[in-house]
C-alpha cells in the first residue's frame, strides 16, 4: 500500500479539454435498414452461398437460348436415350457408356453416333438433348414461380392493406371471405382451375397465385393494423395526406421486410406446385419442358437410365433447398429477434 502511495503526480497527464466530447460520438457508421440487413445476411454463410447459387441458376436459365448446345424441343429419332458423354472424361456415367448386364457398353458406338457428336447430359426418349431441356425447363419453372409470386404479391398486399386500413365493417367482411377461402384445400382450386383452363404458363401461375394469396393478405392486414396506430401515421393523417400516399410512403416501406420474407417462402412453394402439377399431367403441356415434366418423363425410364430423372430432380432440389435456406437467412437478417 505504502509503495503505491509513492507514485508522484508527474506520472499523470491531464486530458485535453476537448477530448471528453468524443465519448458521445458514435464510432460505427450509421446504417440504413437495408444496409444492416445486408450486413447480417453476409455473415450467414449458408444463406449467402444459397443466394449466389440461385443467382447463378437464374443467369444460366435466362441465358439458356445462348448457351444451350442444342434445341430443347428438337427430336432426333436416331439418337434416343444416349447416356451422358463429355469428351476426355473417363468416369463411368459421363463417358457415353451405359450399364448392360453388369458390364458397360459404349452406347454411342452401338447407335452409330458420328465421333464428333456428344451430349453432356445425354438424350431423352425422343433424342432431345437433356441439358438444353433442363435449362429450358428451369426457365419455365422459374417463370411460373415469379409470375405466381408477383400476382400473389399484388393481390395479397392490396387486399391486406385495404382490409387493415379501412377496418370496421369492410375489414370484417373481407376477413370472413378470407376465412372461407382458406378453408378450401389449395389443391382443389388449382386442379379445378387447370381442368377448366388447361395448363399453360399463365394459367398455372394464376392457379398457384389464387391458392396462396390469402397468407400474404393476412400478414399484411395484421401489419397494417399495428402500423395504423403509430404516431407518424397519425401525423401524416393530420397533415391531410391521402390514404393512397400514406400506403405508398409509410405503410408499404415499413412492411417491406414482412413482404420480402413472405415472398421468399412463396417462390419455392410455387416451384414445387408447378413441378407437382406438371408431374401429374395437368401443368405445363409437352413438348414444353419444365422441371416437373422432365422428372415425369425421366421416371418412365428410371430403372434403366436413372440419369434422365436424377438430373432434373437434382436441379429442382437444389433450387428448392437454396430458396428455403436463403429465405431463412433473410428472415434472420430482417428480424434479428427470430434468431435471438
Amino acid at each position, binding site marked *: 500500500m505504502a509503495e503505491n502511495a509513492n507514485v508522484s503526480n508527474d506520472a499523470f497527464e491531464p486530458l485535453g479539454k476537448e477530448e471528453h466530447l468524443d465519448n458521445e460520438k458514435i464510432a460505427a457508421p450509421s446504417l440504413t435498414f437495408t444496409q444492416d440487413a445486408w450486413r447480417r445476411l453476409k455473415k450467414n454463410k449458408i444463406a449467402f452461398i444459397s443466394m449466389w447459387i440461385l443467382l447463378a441458376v437464374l443467369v444460366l436459365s435466362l441465358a439458356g437460348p445462348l448457351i444451350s448446345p442444342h434445341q430443347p424441343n428438337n427430336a432426333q429419332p436416331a439418337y434416343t436415350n444416349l447416356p451422358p458423354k463429355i469428351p476426355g472424361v473417363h468416369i463411368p456415367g459421363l463417358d457415353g457408356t451405359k450399364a448392360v448386364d453388369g458390364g458397360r457398353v459404349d452406347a454411342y458406338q452401338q447407335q452409330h453416333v458420328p465421333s464428333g457428336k456428344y451430349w453432356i447430359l445425354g438424350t431423352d426418349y425422343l433424342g432431345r438433348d437433356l441439358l438444353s431441356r433442363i435449362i429450358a425447363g428451369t426457365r419455365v419453372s422459374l417463370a411460373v414461380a415469379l409470375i405466381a409470386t408477383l400476382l400473389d404479391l399484388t393481390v395479397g398486399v392490396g387486399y391486406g392493406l385495404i382490409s387493415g386500413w379501412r377496418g370496421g365493417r369492410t375489414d370484417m367482411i373481407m376477413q370472413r371471405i378470407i376465412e372461407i377461402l382458406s*378453408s378450401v384445400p389449395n389443391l*382443389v382450386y388449382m386442379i379445378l382451375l387447370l381442368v377448366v383452363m388447361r395448363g399453360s404458363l399463365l394459367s398455372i401461375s394464376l392457379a398457384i397465385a389464387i391458392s396462396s394469396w390469402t397468407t400474404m393478405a393476412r400478414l399484411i392486414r395484421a401489419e397494417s393494423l399495428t402500423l395504423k396506430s403509430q404516431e407518424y401515421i397519425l401525423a401524416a393523417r393530420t397533415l391531410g395526406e391521402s390514404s393512397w400516399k400514406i400506403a405508398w410512403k409509410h405503410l408499404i416501406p415499413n412492411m417491406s421486410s414482412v413482404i420480402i420474407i413472405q415472398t421468399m417462402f412463396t417462390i419455392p412453394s410455387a416451384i414445387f406446385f408447378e413441378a407437382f402439377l406438371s408431374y401429374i399431367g395437368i401443368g405445363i403441356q409437352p413438348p414444353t419442358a419444365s422441371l416437373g415434366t422432365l422428372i415425369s418423363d425421366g421416371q418412365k425410364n428410371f430403372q434403366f437410365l436413372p440419369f434422365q430423372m436424377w438430373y432434373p430432380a437434382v436441379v429442382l432440389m437444389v433450387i428448392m433447398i437454396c430458396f428455403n435456406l436463403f429465405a431463412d437467412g433473410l428472415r434472420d437478417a430482417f428480424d434479428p429477434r427470430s434468431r435471438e
Partner: protein
Amino acid sequence: MAKYLLKRLFYLILTLFLIATITFFMMKLLPGTPLSNESKLSHSQIQMIYHTYGLDKPVWQQYLIYLAGMVRGNFGLSFQFDNQPVSYLLATRMPASFQLGIQAMIVGVLLGIIVGGIAAIRRNTWVDGTMTIISILMISIPSFVLAILLQYYIGLKAGAFPVAGWGNFSYTILPTIALAGSPFATTARFIRTEMVDVMSSDYIELAKAKGLTSTGVVYHHALRNSLIPLITLIGPLTVNLMTGSLVVENIFAVPGIGEQFVKSITTNDYPTIMGITMMYSVLLVVVLLITDIVYGIVDPRIRLQGGQS
C-alpha cells in the same frame, strides 16, 4: 362456447355450399360434353344417354338435383369406371388413403417432435445444425421425387419392401415414409422454434432454480408447452398429405382417393372430380373445426379471444 360453435358451423356450411356451387358451375363451363367424341352415336342415342345422366334438364334444375343429392352423399354416376356411383367408388378407396394418411401423420409428427426437440435442447451445436439440414432437405425434396427414389433404391434394388401395390402392412411402409417427409420437416422446424422460445421463458428458469433435472425441465415444462401450438399445424399438415397422396399413391399403385383423383383428372371424369373435391373440402373444414375446438379447450387464452371477436 355454444354461440361460438354455432357461428363456426354456420360458416362451415356456407363454405361447403360455396365450394359446391363453384365446382358445379366450373364444370358446366367446360367446353364439350363427355360424348362429343363419339360421333357414331345417333341423335336419339345421345338424347337417351343425356337422359340417364340428367343432362337434358335445364342447368338450374341440374344444380338443384346435384345439391340435393350431395346432402345425401350422392355425387351422381361416374362417367368412366363402369358408371359406378361416385360415392361407391370413393367409399371403396377411402380405407387405403386414410390408413396411409394417418400412418404418415403419426410417423411424421412423432419423428418431428423428437428431432425438433433435440435440436432445440442442443441449440447452436452441430446436432442442431444436422437436424436443421435434415429438415430443410425434407422440406425441399418433393414427395414424388422421394417416392420414386424410395421405390427404386429400397423397394427394387434392396428388395426390402414391396415395390408397389396394396396388401399386408409391408406394402404401406414405403408410401408412408414418402408421405411422412413433409409433416416430419414441418413439425421439426415448428417444434424447434417453439421450444427455443419456451426454454427462454421465466418458468423454465424457475424450474431449473427449483433443482429439477434437465430432463425433468424439458419433459414436464418445455416439451409440454411447445406441444400445444402444434395442434394448429394439423390443418396445414392435412392439406400437405392430400397433395402428397395424389402422387405417392399413383407411384406406388395404392388403390386410394389420390390415385383415383389423378385418373379422373386425366380421363375428364367430371362427377368423380367434383365428388373428390367436395370430399377433400369437407375433410379439411372438419379437421380445421375440430382443431380449433380442441385448441380452445387445451389453451383457454385462445377461447377468450375467440369469444370476443
